[in-house]
């Protein structure tokens, strides 16, 4: 479950306050808003990359407002994927597990599982340079899911994709998030993505988050 209670976020001189939202456990929430309305800032604050100036952030019943990003148990996929240019796809999928000192055999099995789930077995030994947009997003998603987070935050994951790949990755997101039963917050400006993916939709309107009821 993702809960924001009267949260204030700030990025430079830009600020939003009194933000509240609730995404039930296991559901796919989409937060919409036009460009530069603060969607990414809200996502970064939930992930712990920016401090919340006020209010509470509660993930799966645990208050994480003042916890470091590494302690929140969130999988994060930024807008451009931000793959690690010196690592292979295999190393990407294993990264979160290596940080946690997981045994090699468990890591190998988890990497194989993720590669199968995301359809990237054929590129495991490649580096990010030369991967297509769709492949990069799959790798970024796999990296975020490797440590089995209960929360997944996606910042416009389909923004840079062409139409064909867009549909493909959209279907992948829906399937994967259902299979791994992760509570998801997907930030986008696209209504069609919201219609296709969302269990619950929110919109930033006039500096506040409103629940859009279909």
């Amino acid at each position, binding site marked *: 479950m993702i809960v924001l209670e009267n949260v204030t976020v700030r990025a430079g001189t830009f600020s939003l306050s009194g933000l509240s939202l609730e995404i039930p456990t296991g559901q796919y929430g989409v937060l919409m808003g036009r460009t530069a309305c603060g969607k990414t800032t809200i996502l970064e604050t939930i992930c712990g*990359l920016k401090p919340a100036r006020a209010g509470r952030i509660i993930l799966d019943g645990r208050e994480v407002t003042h916890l470091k*990003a590494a302690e929140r148990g969130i999988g994060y996929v930024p807008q451009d994927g931000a793959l*690690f240019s010196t690592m292979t796809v295999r190393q990407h999928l294993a990264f979160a597990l290596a940080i946690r000192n997981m045994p090699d055999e468990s890591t190998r099995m988890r990497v194989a599982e993720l590669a199968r789930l995301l359809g990237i077995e054929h590129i495991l030994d490649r580096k990010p340079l030369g991967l297509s947009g769709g492949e990069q997003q799959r790798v970024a998603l796999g*990296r*975020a899911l490797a440590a089995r987070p209960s929360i997944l935050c996606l910042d416009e994951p389909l923004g840079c994709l062409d139409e064909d790949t867009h549909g493909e990755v959209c279907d992948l997101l829906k399937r994967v998030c259902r299979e791994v039963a992760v509570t998801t917050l997907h930030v986008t400006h696209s209504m069609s993505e919201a219609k296709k993916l969302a269990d619950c939709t929110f919109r930033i309107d006039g500096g506040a988050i409103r629940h859009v009821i279909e």
Partner: protein
Amino acid sequence: MTISRPINAGQAATLAGECRAEIHGLHRVPSDVPFVAGLCVLGGVYVLLIAGMLLADLSFTTPGNFLAALRSEDIRYAIRLSLISCSITALLSLWIATPIGYLMSRYPFRGKAIFDAVLDIPIVLPPLVIGLSLLILFRTPAGRFVERFIPVTYAVPGIILAQWMVACAFAVRTMRTSFDQISPRQEQVALTLGCSQSQAFWQIVLPQARRGILAAGTLAWARALGEFGPILIFCGATRMRTEVMPTSVFLELSVGNIEAAVAVSLLMVIAAVIVLLLVRALGRPPWNG
């Protein structure tokens, strides 16, 4: 041209065509030849001057003078001391420049502008002033305390210190630029994956900065090789003791042995060219030709 009555699509197209013809008819694109020629002349003058200097040096010395310089015990000592001290200086510069460059690139803090200005001081200060300032520093109680354990003034450690004072400043600039070019987004992702700041630095940022590290190390090495003023003031110019290659050039010139001075200068040019080529070869991305 103003329109005062409603017009249909065909009339609009005709009007647009007439306006376009009027504008394009008046416009003449100036030739690019003077611009490109200007660039070539300015660039060419500078490159020719550099090449001219080197050719003049080459023509002034003979292979015999060159080999005689290499056979001289003093000059061989100076070459050895230069190579060793420059290498130590380059490593020390990287050791300090990497964390400072990262700090300046990633962390806002109070007084950052002043800190940044102080880091540039060794670059803008006259080399002789750096040497003099070091000499005075080691005359203070703190300096004398250090000298009880390590001889610095007029000794080899002093050479490394004098070289490092300037070389490190250049390395800091290079490392900061290098870190500025690496998006912080990847580190942010690493933090969400469970990394501490330190783990994100070592595992994500540093591998990507290796070309910058190579460039900074090379710049520091090359800068250290040419350092003369601070070393002269702080360490003196004692043969077979504190004589580095630039000092050899100075000493040979001061006794009127211009051929030997030019020979040593050419040795330094050769060393610099080898280092430059090495850096370009090692630093080239794999997808470049």
